[in-house]
């Protein structure tokens, strides 16, 4: 049987799934607020810590912290996409999706694009929320002046990195959701996974302060590169070259999305 590209990747079906995800997201405003609550409190209270600029790459702590908290927001909201797979299974809507004449690839792509949109929206909300707390964007060129162009490029690039971060963790969420079929199991595993990923990423303090073995783990954490890239794009300071961040995230994103699609297809047939 011949397969055409349009059969496998069906744009209108992907759009439909995206549309549903966004309608649901904006309808459940309390959930949005709830998921923003935790990162918001992290930012508000940790920013009060008397951290010497010398220990955080010469930055004010709020400037160091805010990109990390945006990374955290993306991480948490992306794993919600996995939860929505389980939610749909529990409420039966997954059947309605699976019986439609749409390829499994399109279904998973629709899910991921939808999850990315809602997660990005929350990441950007978090960025905006950081300003009243004293956060200032300095843009890309490190050491240089915060020109309008530098800020513009920095913000645009940071959006690109937000997309990559979301893709990575949505893929991970869907993969786990396909394996763990009930809600409590999923939240349990995610808690044991999400918090280490967050704390190891250098979102709260620089990797230099980690013990050596922990630093090794941090290098294996995709969010490390995500937070580093956001910090570089927004306040001009980072540990790795931006290109390395990009390569690491693109790789991790490709791997988890593929894995998520593969496991989802196997689980749902």
């Amino acid at each position, binding site marked *: *049987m011949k397969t055409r590209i349009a*059969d496998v990747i*069906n744009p*209108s*079906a992907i*759009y*439909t799934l995206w*549309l*549903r995800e966004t*309608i*649901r997201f904006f*309808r*459940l405003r309390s959930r949005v607020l709830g998921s923003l609550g935790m990162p918001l409190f992290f930012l508000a209270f940790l920013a009060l810590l008397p951290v010497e600029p010398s220990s955080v790459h010469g930055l004010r702590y709020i400037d160091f912290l805010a990109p990390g908290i945006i990374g955290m927001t993306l991480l948490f909201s992306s794993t919600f996409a996995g939860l929505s797979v389980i939610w749909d299974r529990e*409420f*039966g*809507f*997954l*059947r*309605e*999706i*699976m*019986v*439609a*004449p*749409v*390829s499994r690839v399109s279904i998973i792509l629709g899910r991921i694009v939808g999850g990315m949109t809602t997660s990005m929206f929350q990441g950007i909300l978090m960025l905006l929320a950081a300003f009243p707390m004293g956060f200032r964007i300095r843009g890309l060129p490190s050491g240089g002046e915060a020109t309008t162009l530098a800020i513009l490029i920095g913000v645009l690039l940071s959006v690109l990195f937000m997309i990559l971060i979301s893709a990575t963790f949505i893929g991970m969420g869907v993969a786990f959701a396909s394996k763990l079929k009930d809600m409590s199991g999923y939240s349990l595993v995610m808690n044991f996974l999400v918090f280490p990923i967050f704390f190891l990423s250098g979102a709260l303090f620089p990797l230099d302060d980690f013990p050596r073995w922990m630093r090794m783990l941090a290098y294996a954490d995709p969010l490390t590169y995500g937070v580093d890239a956001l910090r570089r794009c927004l306040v001009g300071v980072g540990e790795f070259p931006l290109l390395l961040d990009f390569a690491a995230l693109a790789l991790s994103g490709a791997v988890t999305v593929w894995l998520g699609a593969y496991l989802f297809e196997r689980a749902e*047939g």
Partner: protein
Amino acid sequence: MDAIVAERLTKCFNGLKAVDSVTFRVREGEIFGLLGPNGAGKTTLLKMLATLLKPTSGSARVCGYDVVSDADEVRRRIGVVFQEPTLDIKLTAFENLDFHARMYGMGKEERRRRIREVLRLVGLEDKADVLVENFSGGMQRRLEIARGLLHSPEVLFLDEPTLGLDVQTRKSIWEYIKERNEEEGVTVVVTTHYMEEAEFLCDRVAIIDFGKVIATGTPESLKASCGSAVITIAVDGSAQSRSRNQDGVAEAERLAAILSELEFVEEAGVRGCGRGRGSVVEVNVRGSGETCIPELVLAAAKAGIGIKSLSFRKPTLEDVFLKLTGREIRDEGEGGFKDFVRWTHVLWHRRRR
């Protein structure tokens, strides 16, 4: 042409055969019922036909396409209404239907027209913008049926469409299904364990038990196999029971044996095992039922067996099931190994979902 051709269709779950070499055909435009008790394998069979489960062996074609190798072609041509709700309760009725229409690649104009049409059909046109979570069970069911019809499928699968609904809603849903079948010519395959549903709705019925089709035919022809009438005789065992210290069961058994010998009797047997039901004999008779009654009474009197009461009715599909399996379709839960096996089936399915 046949809308569905299933040949030796089999599905095993860990060695347990949920569906066991099932062969049947569904003609285009008919309402076909899969009738059987819970756990008989109806839903598994339906899921295989709807491309949601792959058969362990055997094959099935729906609208001429194989359910495994041409699953997408089959999906395009079928509508499925599942036993459990599959609506997004956080969306409105319109949004649920719109989602469905888009997934089936319907154009904008067609979408609007058909959504309005099917909503009117199920009497929900003024509820289009209400969140589904505010719908009653019956309204949700109607919306699901509307959605199953939205993309004008050639075959509509309904898995226990009226499960858990009140009598009035059930009746009106039967009417909807019949109307759709007549007006749009859609072939309908419906699973049910409600006898009345199968009798009212279906042109033809396949009776399923333990994964096997044990009879197929029109409700009339199936019922005809049980004779023309069922006469229920309650035996008065009180006189004997006091003196011989036994209940009416022995009397009933004796009567059944005597009546079985009569030439117009198709079958006679003691019915039920519950308290107070043991002394009831059910007789399937041929010919015109009414004229048999005096003869039955006479035969009982000759044998010295008292009759407390006697009733007369036309046979139902329930009687057909009883005759074929020796069990009643809904009186489950009497224990025993067969029920144990059945429930392991059911539990296993739940786990698989």
